[in-house]
């Protein structure tokens, strides 16, 4: 092998080394920035020269039509004087909005008391969280008979579901096992941003974590993961619906599957977890949870 070939080979091997994956943190930063910024649709006169004749003709026709329409509007009697009067109200939209409007969020009822019944499609206000939020109860799997809400005594965890069938739990500053697969590693209080949840899930000794999925929640960038715990995972007393009880507040068991969400509130992160028991399909609970999370509106 000649010296030159050897140098090229070394150079190529050297270039092969190094990172090849953009971090989730950067992806989230990009999408947050994108959500905040507008696209620039600039008029670029130097491009007229390279436009096709047909495109140019279309632009001219549209411009002429627009000018004609403007002329007609200006000459219509009564139109010019209408600016000082009350503006006509817009007809009500027949398309219901998926998200809850700010006004609705302020007028929503508080959640019912312990184990109070919930109605599908109704909007409730979770007022005991550090950052209160309103949410719509989605259509959940099976019958909605027995669907209830359970706010834990500390007011920072809300469980929605049918005991023994499924649950969607919403947590704010919750005590979690440091490793969801190892109860010997103690607990910690989940705070911070979605990156903290991401780091917690990925640090687990035997959890399989899906790539992150980005969701838009009330103008925020929220994140979602599907997690499968290994057959030896066990952390905390296994009880999802009876309240904090023994530390940690949330416990995980062997071979469980969950969907986790992290929703930034500004100063903190709300964690949402899906649970399915017995014959209930986790996939259906996950669809309902997606809808619930995307309906959240912070006050």
């Amino acid at each position: 092998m000649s010296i030159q070939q050897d140098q090229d080979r070394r150079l190529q091997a050297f270039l092969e080394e190094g990172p090849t994956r953009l971090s989730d943190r950067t992806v989230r930063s990009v999408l947050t920035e994108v959500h905040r910024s507008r696209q620039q649709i600039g008029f670029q006169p130097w491009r007229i020269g390279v436009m096709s004749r047909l495109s140019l003709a279309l632009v001219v026709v549209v411009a002429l039509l627009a000018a004609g329409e403007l002329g007609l509007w200006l000459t219509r009697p009564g139109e010019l004087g209408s600016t000082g009067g009350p503006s006509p109200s817009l007809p009500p939209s027949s398309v219901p909005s998926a998200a809850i409007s700010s006004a609705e969020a302020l007028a929503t009822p508080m959640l019912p008391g312990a184990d109070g019944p919930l109605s599908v499609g109704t909007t409730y206000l979770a007022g005991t969280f550090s950052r209160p939020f309103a949410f719509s109860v989605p259509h959940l799997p099976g019958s909605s008979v027995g669907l209830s809400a359970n706010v834990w005594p500390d007011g920072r965890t809300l469980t929605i579901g049918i005991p023994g069938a499924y649950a969607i739990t919403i947590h704010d500053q919750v005590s979690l096992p440091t490793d969801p697969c190892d109860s010997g590693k103690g607990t910690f209080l989940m705070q911070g941003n979605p990156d903290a949840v991401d780091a917690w899930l990925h640090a687990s000794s035997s959890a399989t974590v899906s790539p992150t999925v980005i969701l838009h929640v009330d103008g925020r960038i929220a994140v979602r993961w599907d997690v499968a715990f290994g057959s030896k995972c066990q952390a905390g007393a296994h009880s999802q619906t009876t309240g904090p009880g023994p530390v940690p507040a949330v416990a995980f068991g062997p071979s469980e599957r969950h969907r986790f969400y992290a929703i930034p509130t500004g100063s903190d992160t709300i964690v949402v977890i899906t649970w399915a028991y017995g014959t209930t399909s986790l996939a259906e609970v996950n669809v309902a949870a997606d809808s619930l999370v995307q309906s959240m509106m912070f006050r």
Partner: protein
Amino acid sequence: VLDSLVDRARQGDEEAFGILVRQVGDRCLAIAYRILRDFDRAEDAVQTTLVAAWRELPNLRDAGRFEAWLHRMLVNACYAEAKRSRRRDASVQMLVADPKAGDDYHTINDRDQLERAFARISPEQRAVVVFHLYLGLTVPEVAEHHGIPLGTAKSRIHAATAALRAVLEADARVPAVRQERPA
């Protein structure tokens, strides 16, 4: 698929742009890191590029040219980042061997030589080397992805590889010279 995502993103579809970011982000990082030789700065350059791409997308006329268009922005973001970092510090970097690689002395020494050789050539030269040798683009493609004339791309690649070879040859000669010196 990429073209349809670009078309949707061009019309303001954030979800499509999110998928696009996932598809092209890793490759952008790989390129930026190899030009800048610094992970954090590479991520900064990629973030700047992707946000700028979102803003400018409506002005991209041909979705089929998205990748070349994005790479042009990325290369410019890398140049700006390199300029900023030159101003910020004297670019003195410790070489940290990757402990996972289980390298012997020769491999570390080899990488050390290449790292120094790369540090001595300009960001513009590094960029053409990365596109030519790492991505495997032809010289006309390198020219397109950099937005430079073909002749400029040719001369940059030639100058960069010559400079790299000179550094490597000079480094290779040093131990031999030392051995010949009288005690």
